[in-house]
C-alpha cells in the first residue's frame, strides 16, 4: 500500500527460525581447515605460505596488493599440507590453502588501536589488515565500503540486522549476545565515514533484538523495526524503506549518500580495532533437517559435515546441502568449508527438498506482483528462452537482484530466477566481447 513505509512486492515465506532461542555455541576446532584465496568480492590473494610451513591461528596466509581485496588468515594453528584448487561454497574452483590442525590453537600476538588517537587512515588500514569483508553474505571488502570516493557524500550509515532469509538466526543471536561489540564497530564505522546519522534496522519478528539494541544504543543511534517481508535485508530495499531513496541501476548505495553495514561485520570491525583480531571466525546457523539445530561460532575453513555432526547429524538422508538461506543460498554438490560469507548451513532431506515439474505459464502475474525491483520476470524469462538478450536489456534484465521471489510464487513452478540469471550471464558475456 502506498501509504505504508516499505518497498514494493516481496513475499512472506514461513519464517522457520527454529534456532532463535539457541545461544551461540563454540564449534569444535576443525582437524583440517580449507582457505580459498578468494573469499570476497575483488581480486584473489596470493599465498604467503608454502606446503610444510607451520602457521599459528590469526596468521596472515594470503594477501594481495589490489585495493579491492581482503587478506586471508589461518583460523587454527598447524601445518600447511596442500595448496590446490577446491570448490568453494559459491561453487567456484579456487586455489585453496589446506591446513592441518596441531590441536594446540596457538595464536599470533595481536594488538588493537588506541581509538582516541587513531587516524581515519590507520583505522581503515587495520580493518583491511584484519581481512574484514561483509559478513551478510556478499563479502565485499569492508575497508573499501568505508572509504567511498571523495565526490560521494555519505550522510547515513544503515546497520543491517534485518536477516530476512528464513531459517537463519545468526544475526539475531549476535544482536542479543554481542550488542555492545556491534555498537562499538558501528561507532567506529560512523567515525570513519564521518556520518552523523546511524540507523540500525531490524525486522519486527525479532522483538527481543530490537529491544536489546534500543536499550544499548540509548539515544546515540536510531533503532527502527521494519515489517517482516522478504527481501527486506537486500540493501536496495532497505534504503528504499528507510530513506525512500532508490539506488540507481548499476550504482551503489553511496551514490545516494548511504552505506549499509551488516551487524556481524560491525562486530568484526570492533574486534579488529579493539584487539587486532583478524576475521577467523563467524556465527553460522546450522539448521534444517539436523537433529539439533544450533547457532555456532565457527572457525573459517571448518567443513560443513563437521558442523552437521555437531548438531547431532542429519534427520534422514541429506538431499540438499545449502550454504546460506533457502531463498538465495547455494546448493552444494558435496561437502564444502565455511568461508567469510557463509551465514548458514541448511540441510534439507528428501521430505523437504522437493523437486518440481515445470508447467506451462498461465500468465497469472504473481511474479510481476512479487518482484521488488518492478521487473516483469515472466517476460524476461521468455525473452531469455528465445535468446532475445537485447530486448532483455531493454526490459532491464540487469536490474534483477536474483532474490528468487518470482520462482517462489510461480504456481507453474517455472524456475524464473534461474532463467533470468542465465540471461544476465549472456548479456555480460556479450558486453565483454
Amino acid at each position, binding site marked *: 500500500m502506498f501509504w505504508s513505509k516499505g518497498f514494493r512486492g516481496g513475499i512472506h515465506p514461513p519464517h522457520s527460525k527454529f534456532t532463535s532461542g539457541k545461544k551461540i555455541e563454540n564449534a569444535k576446532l576443525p582437524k583440517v581447515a580449507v582457505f580459498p584465496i578468494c573469499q570476497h568480492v575483488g581480486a584473489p590473494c596470493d599465498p604467503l605460505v608454502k606446503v610444510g610451513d607451520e602457521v599459528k591461528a590469526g596468521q596472515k596466509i594470503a594477501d594481495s596488493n589490489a585495493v579491492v581485496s581482503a587478506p586471508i588468515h589461518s583460523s587454527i594453528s598447524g601445518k600447511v599440507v596442500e595448496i590446490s584448487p577446491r570448490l568453494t561454497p559459491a561453487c567456484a574452483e579456487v586455489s585453496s590453502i589446506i591446513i592441518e590442525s596441531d590441536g594446540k590453537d596457538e595464536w599470533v600476538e595481536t594488538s588493537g588501536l588506541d581509538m582516541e588517537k587513531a587516524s581515519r587512515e590507520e583505522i581503515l588500514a587495520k580493518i583491511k589488515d584484519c581481512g574484514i569483508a561483509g559478513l551478510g553474505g556478499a563479502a565485499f571488502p569492508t575497508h573499501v565500503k568505508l572509504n567511498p570516493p571523495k565526490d560521494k557524500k555519505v550522510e547515513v550509515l544503515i546497520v543491517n540486522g534485518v536477516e530476512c532469509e528464513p531459517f537463519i538466526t545468526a544475526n539475531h543471536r549476535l544482536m542479543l549476545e554481542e550488542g555492545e561489540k556491534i555498537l562499538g564497530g558501528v561507532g567506529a564505522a560512523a567515525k570513519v565515514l564521518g556520518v552523523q546519522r546511524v540507523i540500525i534496522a531490524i525486522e519486527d519478528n525479532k522483538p527481543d533484538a530490537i529491544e536489546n539494541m534500543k536499550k544499548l544504543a540509548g539515544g546515540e543511534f536510531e533503532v527502527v523495526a521494519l515489517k517482516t517481508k522478504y527481501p527486506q535485508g537486500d540493501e536496495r530495499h532497505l534504503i528504499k524503506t528507510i530513506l525512500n531513496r532508490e539506488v540507481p541501476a548499476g550504482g551503489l548505495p553511496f551514490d545516494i549518500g548511504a552505506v549499509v553495514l551488516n551487524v556481524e561485520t560491525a562486530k568484526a570491525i570492533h574486534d579488529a580495532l579493539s584487539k587486532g583480531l583478524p576475521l577467523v571466525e563467524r556465527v553460522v546457523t546450522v539448521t534444517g533437517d539436523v537433529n539439533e539445530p544450533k547457532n555456532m561460532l565457527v572457525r573459517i575453513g571448518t567443513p560443513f559435515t563437521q558442523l552437521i555432526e555437531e548438531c547431532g547429524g542429519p534427520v534422514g538422508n541429506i538431499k540438499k546441502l545449502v550454504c546460506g538461506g533457502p531463498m538465495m*543460498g547455494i*546448493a552444494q554438490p558435496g561437502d564444502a568449508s565455511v568461508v567469510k560469507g557463509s551465514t548458514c548451513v541448511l540441510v534439507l532431506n528428501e521430505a523437504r527438498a522437493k523437486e518440481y515439474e515445470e508447467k506451462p505459464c498461465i500468465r497469472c502475474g504473481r511474479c510481476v506482483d512479487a518482484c521488488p525491483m518492478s521487473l516483469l520476470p515472466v517476460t524476461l524469462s521468455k525473452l531469455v528462452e528465445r535468446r532475445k538478450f537485447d530486448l532483455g536489456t531493454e526490459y532491464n534484465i540487469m536490474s534483477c537482484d536474483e532474490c528468487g521471489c518470482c520462482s517462489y510464487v510461480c504456481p507453474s513452478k517455472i524456475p524464473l530466477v534461474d532463467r533470468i540469471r542465465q540471461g544476465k550471464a549472456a548479456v555480460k558475456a556479450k558486453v565483454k566481447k
Partner: protein
Amino acid sequence: MKCVVSSWPHIRDGVTSKEIMLAVVIALLPATAFGVWAFGLNALLIIITSIVSAVATEFVAFKLMGKKFVMDGSAVVTGLLLALTLPPTLPLWTTVAGAVVAIGIGKCAFGGLGYNIFNPALVGRAFLSLSWPALMTTWVAPGTLTTSATPLTGASVSNTDLFLGNVAGSLGEISKLALLIGGLFLIAMKYIDWKVPLCYIGTVGVLSLALGYDPIFNILVGGLFLGAFFMATDYTTTPITRNGKVIFAVGAGALVVAIRSFGGLPEGVAYSILIMNAFTPLIERVTKPRVYGTGKKVMGK
C-alpha cells in the same frame, strides 16, 4: 556425499496452477447450482456436455499436435464458463459445437494453455451466436421455463429480482448474488485482483449515469458480473501488469456501455472482453512498471 544441485530458491509457495483452476470452479459453483435450480435438468445436461466436450477436445487436439495432455483443469473451467453463458434451453449438439470451437480454435490452435489471445469460452459463445442466432436468443423464465423476454430485450423487472436472479437469461448469469459470492471468494484467496471487477463494473455504472441510463439496472443486467469476476480476470488473456489490468477493465466497461447504447446488439459483455483481449499485448507494453533505480524518481524525495 552427493547432493542435489539446483538454483535457488530451495523452498516454494504451495499454490499450483491446478489449485487455482479448482478454486475458479469452486467459485462458480453457487452460480452453477442456481442455474440448475432455476432451469432444471437441461441446464445440468448443458453444463456436463460442455465440460466433457471441452476436455475431450483438448485431449484430441493435444494428441494431434503430439503434445502431452495434462489434466490441469483449465479445460474444465472453459467448459463450465461457456455453459454458464448459454441459454438454458440450448440443444446439446449446439453446446458440443461451442465447446469444440472454444477449446479447439480458441485455445489449442494458439498452442494451448497460456498462449491463447482470446478468452476461449467467449470465442465459443461468439461462434454460437453467429452460427445459430435464433437458438442463442431463445430465453425462458426461471422455474416455469416458459418463453420470455430478457430485461435487455424489454422485459421489466425490479432491481432486486435482477440481483437475486428471478429473471430470464443465460444459464449462469442470472443471479448476481451467486456470482458475487464466488467472485469475493476468489478475491479473498488473492487469486484475482479486486480492482478489475471494481473498475469494470464501476465504469459501466459511471458511463451509464453520464449517458442518462439507470446505472444500477445497467450493472445488474446481462452477463456483466460473470464477465467482470471470471473473464476480465482470466490470467492468460488479460495484462500481467497491475496498471494494465485496470486499463483493461476500464476499456471493457466503456465498450459494454458503447455496444449496449449505440450498437446493434442488446448485450456487449462478451464482445467487450474479446476486443480488449486483442489489446492485451499493447496494454502490457505501455504499462511496464518503472523499474527500481531507473527513471526520474530515482532520488526519491
